[in-house]
């Protein structure tokens, strides 16, 4: 059959590509709800470098999406089952290296078509079934799985003194990581350090919040998650190095376009470990789906989700990307194209 792929061809310009869809050994999914990631927004606005834009475009955006199985040539799923889709792809199997760091891995909506399509065809191991999760929440499963991945790696790497875990950042990623840490590191005190008092007020479930400019002199954390990224990375990492206790583990999740200077003398003196985290894999998706089965967590995440009107035309695609710029957290929308 013929499929419609809604590609970004240049900043703020969407064009339709028609393709004959390959269904052999594939699961066909009709996307239902999508969520905009900052990475999508940067491509849409043309905020990546000219070189990157030239390399990656044209491509369909969006890698956070849930949908319904409409056909499965592999008989793994039943028609009508609700699923989330894994945008990371790798053909190598490795027991040591996570799939999202495999040298041959590629990512849908980063040089390959993302989920803004009429139908998405995926191999069955790139599809995870879910039940009892509201669709706007299920749409951000990929985002949740990134937090799951970081916390899983943290759990394997960090020493057992975990009295205080600090999160730098007050955006969606920090919110997800804080929510998950409250579920998965129940013995730890969770502290969030941010720049915006209004955004910090959303973190009512954590033990303490602080404005980054007003940290008390005796402030300390045992481990830290950096969820800032961008131009703020330098300040966040510098704060973390200053306030973290010796041999602490620092999980880096914020994406920075530019190189960030870091004070290595203190890293060496304190014996700190820095772990970079990006994206996620199948096991992280499965864990995310399991965690999202918890209604309390769903309710918590729903407070950072703004559901825009459905997208039924290319004009609507422009509308949601424009609206997302003024949304402090996550924009989701029903996909009706």
């Amino acid at each position, binding site marked *: *059959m*013929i499929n419609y792929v809604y590609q970004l061809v240049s900043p703020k310009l969407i064009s*339709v590509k*028609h393709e*004959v869809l390959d269904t052999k050994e594939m699961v066909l999914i009709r996307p239902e709800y999508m969520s905009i990631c900052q990475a999508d927004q940067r491509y849409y606005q043309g905020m990546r470098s000219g070189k990157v834009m030239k390399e990656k475009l044209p491509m369909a955006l969006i890698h956070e999406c849930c949908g319904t199985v409409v056909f499965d040539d592999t008989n793994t799923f039943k028609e009508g089952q609700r699923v989330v889709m894994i945008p990371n792809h790798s053909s190598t199997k490795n027991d040591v290296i996570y799939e999202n760091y495999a040298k041959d891995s590629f990512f849908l909506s980063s040089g390959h078509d993302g989920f803004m399509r*009429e139908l998405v065809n995926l191999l069955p191991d790139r599809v995870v079934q879910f039940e009892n999760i509201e669709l706007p929440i299920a749409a951000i499963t990929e985002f949740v799985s990134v937090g799951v991945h970081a916390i899983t790696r943290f759990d394997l790497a960090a020493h057992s003194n975990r009295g205080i875990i600090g999160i730098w950042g007050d955006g969606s990623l920090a919110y997800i990581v804080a929510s998950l840490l409250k579920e998965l590191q129940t013995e730890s005190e969770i502290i969030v350090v941010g720049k915006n008092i209004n955004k910090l007020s959303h973190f009512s479930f954590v033990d303490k919040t602080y404005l980054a400019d007003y940290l008390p002199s005796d402030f300390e954390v045992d481990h830290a998650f950096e969820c800032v990224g961008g131009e703020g990375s330098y300040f966040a990492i510098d704060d973390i190095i200053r306030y973290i206790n010796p041999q602490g583990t620092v999980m880096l999740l914020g994406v920075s376009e530019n190189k960030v200077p870091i004070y290595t003398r203190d890293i060496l003196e304190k014996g700190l470990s820095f772990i970079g985290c990006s994206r996620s894999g199948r096991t992280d998706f499965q864990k995310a789906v399991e965690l999202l089965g918890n209604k309390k967590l769903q309710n918590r995440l729903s407070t950072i989700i703004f559901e825009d009107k459905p997208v039924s035309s290319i004009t609507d695609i422009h509308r949601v990307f424009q609206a997302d710029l003024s949304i402090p957290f996550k924009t989701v929308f029903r996909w009706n194209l």
Partner: protein
Amino acid sequence: MIFGAILAGGVGSRMNIADVPKQFLPLGNKPIVIHTLEKFMLCTSFDKVYVGVHPSWISHMEDLIDKYINSKAEKVCIVPGGEDRNSTIFNIVKSIEEDYGENEEDIIVTHDAVRPFVTLRIINDNIDAALKYGACDTVIPATDTIVESKNGISITNIPIRSHMYQGQTPQSFKIAKLKKAYYDLSDEEKDILTDACNILVKRKMYVHLVMGDAANMKITTVNDYKVAQAMVGGMAID
């Protein structure tokens, strides 16, 4: 119940390519009608999809279904096409009633086999509109000014462009409503009113508009076929 009705009854090619009706010509790696049928098969609302095919081409259509629609073949039913578009639709209606009986609320979504670029959104919007309003037509706003001439020599009228739309398919109906309008026509009217929605309009029945898509083109001419091939990145065949 909700039924798909793919109209593939034509025998003319008009393509100067082969003596094959255009719905059977390849587009990419499959015949045009199969692309259309596959999209209908993905719509879970359909209880069955009927394909109206000229009697001479039924065995060919059966072979194509065996080859391409294998796993869902039980959801497809081939019906002999009639002499014209409406008689093919009513052959399908007859077949539905033989299979499932007459039901006041049954919906039929009729679609040209040679419009393989139909989307699930258009099909679902048709079903919703037919359920809610009893009848609907798929259209796109006219981009060119429409000029009416009754003698083909001079302009009779230039309607306001913003009131003009180009008709596409699907066209969808409550079967009972369509039958009522059609059987009320005289033989002369039946010869003139080749468009199913027009039958209802002439009987002052409400027909709702569903927004189509410019890409939902009808592959009728050699040029259309070349455009369609180019759209899916296939080879143009001269």
